[in-house]
């Protein structure tokens, strides 16, 4: 059965800190890995990763995939209170569904 495990499940930091969120997976037919941010309701798309070792970057957020060790990390530098959210990692496998991890609840305090 396809499985996505995120860690930590929850994290509390101060503004300005750098955080690293982890996502490991076990899948039979990997296609892509996606990161989403969920603030109040609808998850919003952050990154899609398909190739190992190529960093995707958007402002203070970046992500990289390691297909040999089966994990991805999401980095957020110089965190702000607006970064407080649940960060979801999802795996696209054959069959078209996305399998999600439990998410990491990030709280950034002023």
């Amino acid at each position, binding site marked *: 059965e396809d499985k996505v495990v995120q860690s930590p499940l929850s994290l509390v930091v101060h503004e300005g800190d750098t955080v690293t969120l982890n996502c490991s997976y076990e899948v039979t037919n990997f296609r892509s890995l996606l990161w*989403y941010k969920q603030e109040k309701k*609808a998850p919003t798309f952050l990154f899609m990763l398909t190739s190992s070792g190529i960093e995707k970057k958007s402002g203070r957020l970046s992500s990289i995939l390691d297909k040999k060790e089966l994990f991805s990390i999401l980095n957020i530098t110089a965190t702000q209170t607006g970064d407080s959210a649940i960060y*979801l990692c999802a795996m696209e496998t054959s*069959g078209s*569904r996305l399998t*999600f991890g439990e998410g990491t609840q990030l709280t950034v305090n002023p």
Partner: protein
Amino acid sequence: GAGVSQSPSNKVTEKGKDVELRCDPISGHTALYWYRQSLGQGLEFLIYFQGNSAPDKSGLPSDRFSAERTGGSVSTLTIQRTQQEDSAVYLCASSLRSSGFLSGANVLTFGAGSRLTVL
């Protein structure tokens, strides 16, 4: 429409009643998904539509749950004889994904969800 619309945004019902949740995907998106998110949990896959057909309904938790999609657009998720454990946020998402294998990319756009509370 511009985004994925879901209704109602909030629904409170009594145990044993039936409920219908509606999803209006982004115009032109052929793929439509239903997920469920319980408090403090990740997203649990329920069902996937490609056009009007559902090639993967393996996530529906029991035969009280059903979904349909008409005209390749609007979808309705129906829960019969609701139970307290059905309380959750039901999220709908759509994507441009067409049938057949596409390398990588299945970026889903989510609606704001329907929060269901069963008393």
